[in-house]
């Protein structure tokens, strides 16, 4: 038997950086820019070294104007470049919302394909870092609601690199959300336990060079038969911990791509388990979980043995001191798992 090749282990930051490196190398139309991404290499180091390697015309710093960053990206995309724009924190994407919703998302449709916006907007998201109101938000529902956008959120280095490569190759605008609590290691919500580095996690093994992970395909992280857990980003690790701790034989699905959504994987799982718990960090009202619950309800109603439950952030702004009361940790997820099994 051939032994499995040893792959390099990367953090999420390294994986993301490498995806841009690979794509900048392969396609000279790929350009990277945003606040502090050039000389400094990004406040999270995701673009470190790219300017040195590819020059200032391929990787550069921008003024602090989110609408400017996305607006020029739309213009560059129309010209024929493939911009990868960074918004420093997802919490600061709102000034660019008009350019994203009204322009990038609709350009292909409104011009009947005359012009397209083949761009990626990267943004660190999510909490668990004492980021409080403006360094913790999970605004994915604001993008999944917009026709013309694709919304992706990886949960590990392997996916982060492969999905970002797919996003950059994609001919439509992609919102690429990076859970910043996962940048340096998987985080299962046990904030009182020592930080685990990515090097201890199987999915930190990432091939050198080019590979891609297809957009629109979920990954089953744990096979199980009792209940289906739908999660993405940091919550995948939280859900896994909750499953281990409760001992419930749950099937944990990492959605990876919210739009387009992998309906087949979701429905096949719920049809098998008859139960579904949805977990996300974002607030609850009209959150993406609402959409997931509706899809499962419409498509799996007759297989359901229990009401669909959602474990989410509370409908409040993200607090500072009460971080761990707000963050949907393994205990809350575990309680939902037990509740859905009792029904």
């Amino acid at each position, binding site marked *: 038997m051939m032994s499995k090749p040893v792959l390099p282990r990367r953090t999420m930051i390294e994986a993301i950086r490498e995806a841009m490196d690979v794509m900048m190398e392969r396609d000279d139309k790929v*350009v990277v820019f945003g606040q502090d991404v050039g000389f400094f290499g990004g406040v999270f180091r995701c673009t470190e070294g790219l300017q040195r390697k590819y020059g200032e*015309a*391929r990787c550069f710093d*921008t*003024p602090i*104007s989110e*609408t*400017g960053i996305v*607006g*020029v*990206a*739309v*213009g*560059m995309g*129309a*010209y*024929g*470049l493939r911009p990868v724009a960074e918004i420093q924190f997802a919490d600061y994407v709102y*000034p660019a919302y*008009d*350019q994203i919703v*009204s*322009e990038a998302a*609709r*350009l*292909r*449709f*409104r*011009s*009947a*394909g*005359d*012009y*397209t916006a083949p761009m990626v907007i990267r943004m660190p998201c999510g909490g668990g870092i004492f980021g409080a109101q403006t360094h913790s938000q999970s605004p994915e529902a604001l993008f999944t609601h917009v*026709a*013309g956008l*694709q919304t992706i959120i990886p949960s590990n280095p392997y996916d982060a690199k492969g999905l970002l490569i797919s996003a950059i190759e*994609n*001919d*439509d605008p992609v919102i690429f959300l990076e859970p910043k609590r996962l940048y340096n290691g998987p985080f299962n919500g046990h904030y009182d336990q020592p930080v685990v580095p990515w090097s201890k996690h199987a999915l930190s093994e990432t091939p050198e060079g080019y590979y891609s992970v297809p957009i*629109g395909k979920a990954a089953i992280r744990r096979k199980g038969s009792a209940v289906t857990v739908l999660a993405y980003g940091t919550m995948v690790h939280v859900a896994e911990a909750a499953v281990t701790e409760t001992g419930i034989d749950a099937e944990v699905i990492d959605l990876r791509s919210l*739009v*387009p*959504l992998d*309906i087949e994987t979701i429905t096949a799982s719920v049809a098998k388990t008859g139960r579904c718990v949805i977990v996300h960090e974002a607030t609850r009202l009209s959150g993406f979980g609402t959409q997931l619950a509706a899809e499962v309800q419409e498509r799996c109603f007759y297989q359901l043995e229990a009401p669909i439950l959602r474990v989410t952030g509370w409908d409040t702004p993200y607090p500072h001191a009460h971080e761990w009361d707000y963050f949907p940790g393994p205990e809350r997820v575990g309680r939902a798992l037990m509740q859905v099994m009792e029904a």
Partner: protein
Amino acid sequence: MSYPPLSLHMPRTMRGESVPPPNPHLRFAGAGEMRRPPVDSDPYDMHDLAYNLVRVLDDDGEAKGEWVPDLTAEQLRHGLRSMLKTRAYDRRMMRMQRQGQTSFYMQCTGEEAIACAFQMVMQKGDMNFPTYRQQGLLIAQGFPLTDMICQVLSNEKDHLKGRQLPVMYSAPEAGFFSISGNLGTQFVQAVGWAMASAMRGDTKIAAGWIGDGSTAESDFHAALVFASVYRPPVVLNIVNNQWAISSPQSVAGGENISFASRAHGFAIPSLRVDGNDYLAVYAAASWAAERARRNLGPTLIEWVTYRVAPHSTSDDPSKYRPKEEELNWPLGDPVERLKQHLIRKGEWSEERNVQLLAGIDAEINDAAREALKYGTLHEGPKASPATMFEDVYKDMPQHLREQRQQMGY
């Protein structure tokens, strides 16, 4: 110490007053009075040009001063033809809207010189990022009128498949970017497009367009700051037609300052130009385009003009401005002024003008007849409803395929 109660300043509305209001900071130089600086001028040496007015044609139709452009009689006649055609096209589209053949239309009456002359300095491959009021960019380059009308009618041959509001054309082959309903967005996109051209070592330039009212949008400022930082080859055009629907330009911040002068805070050279003077528009546009092509960076131009027409077919200007205002507008009618100039040069006559108008009417009638064959908004064929699910993404995702099926396709 006590102070009197505070009160808020409300800009002069200009209601019942003639425009422009007397403003000691803004001058209207006579034709030929303004200097023409070298294209590589330092923006700091150009401040005077942002507070005055570059004009070439005087009241008698004579071309004067350093800005007189090098245009042949044939080029000038082309300009006249383009402006007349634009005006006639607008009239015809208004009629179609009134007759219920489409839902909506926007004229550019009085502003024809700006787009028509500007287009003449653009070269193949350059890109305009227009608003809904630059139809002259298409017409001046002979873009097929039938295609434009089909878009206005949202009919079977509408290249945009009935997806867009009338006048929101898209024409890459004509260097005309897809028009958006969201004001201001295109201004910063033009800067991005020009940045891309420079990043790639290309030779193409871009032009952004915005109205006076929309300069208040944040994308206007974003465009200026990015243009200031990276100095890409872009001409940033503000069409100051004095009105934004019912709001006078004073409400957009133009009460005591010119829009051209906004460039100064960004170290971008700027010009304030008579937008009803075809020669001045051509000359200023050439100056700015030359700067862009020589990698000297962006230019901001404020075109001073007047929105003679209602804002759109849904608007009634008599509710917010007096009719006399239009008649008292000091910069006159761009079409008449160029015509007078050509006649004065001995290159035109009233008879030839009548002939030209008849020819244009015939051309527009033919185009309209042809377009009507392919249906109107409410009658006749149009793109299949199934096409509404296309082009949302390059490849149709499953949820859209399902929705298309639910609709019966």
